[in-house]
C-alpha cells in the first residue's frame, strides 16, 4: 500500500483580476503518494466544497504533461522543480510527510491573474499571431519528400518545437522574460527550410510583439531552461539573438 502524507498548503487566493489577493492555509490530510499534485488539489477542493467553501481555481487539462495548461509555482519553482516535469506529472512521492507547500500563480505583468491560480496567457497566442507560422495556405503544397531535410536539422527543430507553451519560463525568470518561449518558436521554424523565406521577418515581428506585451529582457540566468518541462535549451535564445540581429542589420 502506498504511503500517506499529511501536508499544509499555503495557497494564493484571489477572487478576480481586481481583487488584491491573499494567502490562505489549508490542511491536506491522508494524501496518497501515488497521487499527482493536481489530484492532491482535487482532494483538497472536494473537502472545501463539502465544508461549504469555494474550491481553489487552478488550470489543468490533459494531466499528462503535454497540453501546457497547468501553471503552479510550487515552493517557489514553476511546476515544482522535478526535472522535465509539469505540475500535473509531479507526484506526491516527491514530497515529505509534514511538509508545508506554498502554491502561487505564474507572476508576470503579461500574465494577469484571472482567479486564484489561473492566469491569462493569451500574450503567447498574440506573439504567435504575428509570425509563429509558415505562410502557406491549405492545398497546393509540394510532395512531402520533395525537400530532403537532414536528420540533424530536423531533430534540432523538433527540440525547439517541443515547447508546450506553458509559460514556466516566464514564471521562473526574475525578469518575467518570454525569451525561451519566443526563441523556441522562432527557432523551430527558422531552422527548417520551409521557414527560411520568412526567417528575419518572423524574428523581428515576434520579438517586437514580445516586448510590446510587457515581458522583460533576458539576463541569461538560465532559470527558464532549468524549469522548462520540455528542457528546451538556452541555445535557442542565442539563435534568436542572431536572427533578430540579422533583421536589424539587414
Amino acid at each position, binding site marked *: 500500500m502506498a504511503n500517506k502524507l499529511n501536508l499544509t498548503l499555503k495557497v494564493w487566493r484571489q477572487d478576480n483580476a481586481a481583487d488584491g489577493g491573499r494567502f490562505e492555509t489549508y490542511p491536506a490530510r491522508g494524501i496518497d503518494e501515488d497521487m499527482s499534485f493536481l489530484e492532491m488539489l482535487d482532494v483538497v477542493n472536494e473537502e472545501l466544497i463539502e465544508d461549504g467553501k469555494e474550491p481553489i481555481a487552478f488550470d489543468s487539462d490533459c494531466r499528462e504533461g503535454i497540453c501546457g495548461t497547468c501553471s503552479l509555482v510550487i515552493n517557489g519553482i514553476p511546476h515544482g522543480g522535478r526535472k522535465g516535469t509539469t505540475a500535473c506529472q509531479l507526484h506526491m512521492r516527491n514530497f515529505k510527510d509534514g511538509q508545508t507547500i506554498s502554491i502561487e500563480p505564474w*507572476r508576470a505583468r503579461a500574465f494577469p491573474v484571472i482567479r486564484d491560480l489561473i492566469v491569462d496567457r493569451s500574450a503567447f497566442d498574440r506573439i504567435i499571431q504575428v509570425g509563429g507560422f509558415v505562410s502557406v495556405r491549405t492545398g497546393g503544397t509540394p510532395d512531402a519528400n520533395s525537400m530532403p531535410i537532414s536528420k540533424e536539422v530536423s531533430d534540432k527543430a523538433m527540440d525547439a518545437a517541443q515547447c508546450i507553451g506553458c509559460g514556466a519560463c516566464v514564471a521562473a525568470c526574475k525578469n518575467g522574460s518570454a525569451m525561451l518561449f519566443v526563441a523556441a518558436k522562432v527557432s523551430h521554424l527558422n531552422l527548417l527550410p520551409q521557414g527560411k523565406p520568412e526567417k528575419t521577418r518572423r524574428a523581428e515581428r515576434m520579438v517586437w510583439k514580445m516586448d510590446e506585451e510587457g515581458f*522583460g*529582457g533576458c539576463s541569461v540566468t538560465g532559470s527558464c531552461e532549468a524549469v522548462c518541462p520540455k528542457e528546451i535549451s538556452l541555445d535557442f535564445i542565442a539563435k534568436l539573438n542572431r536572427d533578430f540581429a540579422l533583421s536589424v542589420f539587414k
Partner: protein
Amino acid sequence: MKLITGIFQSTLGRKYIMAVSGAALVFFVVGHLMGNLQIFLGREVINAYGEFLHSVPELLWGARIGLLAMVGLHIWSAVSLSNDNKAARPIAYENWNPTAASYASRTMLMSGLIIATFIIYHLLHYTLQVPGINFTGQDFGTFEELRAGHDPRHDVYRMMVVGFSQPLVALFYICAIGLLCLHLSHGVSAAFQSLGLKSKTWAPILDKGAKVFAIVVFVGYASIPTAVLLGLGKEVMK
C-alpha cells in the same frame, strides 16, 4: 530608422549594446591590468609606461572619451533594461526559489553599480589625483621621478605604492575587484549569448572560461595592493 529603434528600443537590441560595450570594457580591464602589473618590473618600467601613455594626448583623450562612452552605454542599457524587467514582474513571489540562476547573474545590476561607484573613486584617486581622498595626507600630483639627463616624469610607481599603503583604500580596491570578478564571471559568457555567439558545444567552455578569466583578473589586480601591503616598494615610502 529600423536600425536605431532595433538597437536602442528592443530588449534584444539593448542587450547587444550591453554586450558590445561590456566587451570593450573587458578589453580595457585586461589592458589596464597588463599596464599595472608592470609595477612588479620596477619603478623604471612602470614610470616609462606611464610616460608613454601620456605621450600622445590626442590618443589618450580619444581612448578616455571612448571608454567613458562605453561605460555610459553599459550603464544606460543596464538601467533601462532593469526598469523594464522590474515592471515585468509587478508582484513578487512570496516564496522564491531561484533554481539555476546563479548569485552573480541575479546581482548584475547591484555589482555593476558598486563597481561604477568604485570607478568614480578610482578616477579621483589616481587619474585626477584629488589629494583629499587618498587618506595619506600626500598629493600624488607632486610625485616626480628625477632622472639625470632627462626631464622629471610622473612617479606612477610611488603613487601606487603610497596609495595602496593605506589599508582601507587597499581593502576597498580589493573588494571592488572582487565584485568585478563576480560581474565578469556571468557577464563575459552572457555577452556571447546576447550576441548569439554561443552554442551547445561552446556553452560549457564559455561558461567555465568566463569564470577562469574572472579569477585571473581578480588575482592580477588584487596582487598589487596585496604586494604593497606586504612591503613592495617600501623604499619610496619616505
